[in-house]
C-alpha cells in the first residue's frame, strides 16, 4: 500500500514535513462566533416569547370549523391572533375559545370588544364570507374602548352598524313587514343609510327599527335631521307612530325602502348612538 520512495530505516533519513505559517488572526477572535450567536439567538428567543401578548377567552354557542393553532383572529382583515384551544364550558352550554393575541395588537381585547365568527353567508342581496368556504371560519374582532379585558362573550352576528359612524336613530312602528338589518335607507333615490337592527319595544307595543344614517348625510351640528316617512306603492300611509325622538316611520313597502325628507331635529344630541350590540 505504501509506496514510500525512500527506503530509509532511521527517522533522520525521512523527509521533514513542510512548515507553513497559517493563522492570520489570534485565537481569541474565534470567541466572537459564540458571542454573535448569543446575540442573534437571544433576539430570536426574545421575539418568540414576546410574540403573543394576552390570552383571551371568548364564549360562543357554536364553534364549527374553528381549529386550534390554525384559525385566526382578525381585525380589518389582518391577523391579530390565533385560536389556541377549544373546550366546552363546564355546563356544556358554550364553547370556550382560547385565543392568543399578538403583542402589537393587544389593545383589541377591551371592554366592549365584539367577537364573532365569520362564516360563509348567503343572503338575498349579498354573499359574505365566501373565502371562508375554503379557508374555514375565522374570528373577527371589533375592539371596544374600555379597559383591558380577557373574557368575552362572542356574538352570533355583529350589528351592521358596528364600528361605523353616523347618525343613529330609532324609529317606532306598529308592524314591520320586510325590513331587516342591512335594509337600505333611501333619500331621493340615493342610499343614505341602512337599518342596523330591528327589535320589539320593551313593552311589546311597537316595533323599533334602528337606523344608521351615513355621517355625510347627517353632519353633526346641523340641526336638520332625516325624517323618515313611509311610501307604499298604491297604498295610503298607515298611521305613523311617534316615539320620544319624534322620528316617524310607517312600515314599509315590500322592497323595504324608506324615503327621507328633512325636518327639524328634535332629538337631543346625547340620544345618539344606541348600543346595538348583543349582550
Amino acid at each position, binding site marked *: 500500500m505504501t509506496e514510500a520512495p525512500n527506503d530509509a530505516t532511521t527517522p533522520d533519513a525521512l523527509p521533514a514535513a513542510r512548515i507553513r505559517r497559517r493563522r492570520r488572526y489570534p485565537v481569541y477572535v474565534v470567541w466572537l462566533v*459564540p458571542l454573535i450567536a*448569543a446575540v442573534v439567538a437571544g433576539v430570536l428567543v426574545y421575539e418568540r416569547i414576546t410574540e403573543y401578548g394576552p390570552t383571551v377567552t371568548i364564549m360562543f354557542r357554536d364553534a364549527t370549523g374553528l381549529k386550534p393553532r390554525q384559525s385566526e383572529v382578525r381585525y380589518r382583515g389582518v391577523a391579530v391572533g390565533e385560536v389556541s384551544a377549544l373546550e366546552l364550558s363546564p355546563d356544556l352550554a358554550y364553547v370556550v375559545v382560547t385565543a392568543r393575541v399578538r403583542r402589537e395588537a393587544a389593545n383589541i381585547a377591551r371592554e366592549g370588544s365584539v367577537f364573532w365568527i365569520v362564516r360563509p353567508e348567503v343572503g338575498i342581496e349579498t354573499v359574505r364570507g365566501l373565502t371562508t368556504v375554503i*379557508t374555514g371560519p375565522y374570528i373577527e374582532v371589533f375592539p371596544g374602548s374600555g379597559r383591558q379585558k380577557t373574557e368575552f362573550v362572542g356574538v352570533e352576528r355583529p350589528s351592521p352598524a358596528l364600528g361605523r359612524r353616523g347618525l343613529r336613530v330609532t324609529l317606532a312602528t306598529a308592524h314591520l313587514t320586510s325590513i331587516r338589518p342591512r335594509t337600505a335607507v333611501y333619500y331621493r333615490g340615493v342610499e343614505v343609510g341602512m337599518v342596523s337592527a330591528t327589535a320589539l319595544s320593551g313593552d311589546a307595543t311597537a316595533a323599533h327599527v334602528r337606523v344608521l344614517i351615513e355621517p355625510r348625510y347627517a353632519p353633526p351640528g346641523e340641526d336638520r335631521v332625516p325624517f323618515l316617512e313611509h311610501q307604499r306603492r298604491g297604498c295610503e300611509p298607515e298611521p305613523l307612530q311617534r316615539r320620544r325622538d319624534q322620528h316617524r316611520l310607517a312600515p314599509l313597502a315590500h322592497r323595504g325602502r324608506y324615503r327621507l325628507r328633512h325636518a327639524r331635529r328634535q332629538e337631543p344630541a346625547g340620544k345618539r348612538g344606541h348600543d346595538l350590540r348583543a349582550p
Partner: protein
Amino acid sequence: MSLVACDTCGLVQRLPPLAPGVTAECVRCGGRVARGPGGSLARTAAFSLAALMFYLPANLYPILRLEWYGTHSESTAWDGAIELFRQGETMIAVIVFLASIVVPFLKLLALFYLVATVRLRSAAWRRARARLFRALELIGPWAMLDVFVMSVLVALVKLGELATVLPGRGLFSFTAVAVLTMMASVSFDPRLIWERGDERP
C-alpha cells in the same frame, strides 16, 4: 521530533515541534499533517457554544409553514414529531424526534465532553473518546437532514395559490446549529486526546 504519516498519501515524515499558529504540510502531496498547539480546542469549544445558542430558537420556532388553500399550518420539530406519532407513523416520528431534537443535542454534549477532557488532560477513557469522535464524524452529514428535506420541499411544493411551503425561522436556526456543529467537529483535532499521555512516549 516525532513522525507522522500523511492522511492523504501515506508518506511518513518527520515532524519538528510546531509553534502556535503554524501548520505542517506533507512534503509530497501538500495535505495538512499537523497543526500547532492552541486554536483547535478553542475553535471547537467556540463553535459548539455558538451551536448551542441556536439550539433553543431552532426548537422554539416553526421549521416550516405550509400554506394550503388559504389555510396555513406552522410546525416546529416537536409539533411535527407529535403529529406524526398521532397519525400512527411511529417510526417516522421517532426518526424526526431523534434526528431533529436528540442527536443535535447529544452531538454538542459529546463535543463539550471531548473539549473538557482534553483541556483537563484526562487520561481516562481514551479509546472510548477516540471512538466517540469517530462516531461524531460519521453522523455528521445526517445532522443536515432537516435542512435538506426542507430545501427540497420548499423548492418542490410551489403550486401557486394552492399550496406553498415556506421555510420558518426555525429552519434558519437549525441550519446554524448543523453548520456550527460541523465546524466544531472539523476543528477538533483527535490527536489532542492522545497528547501528553502515558501511552505515547
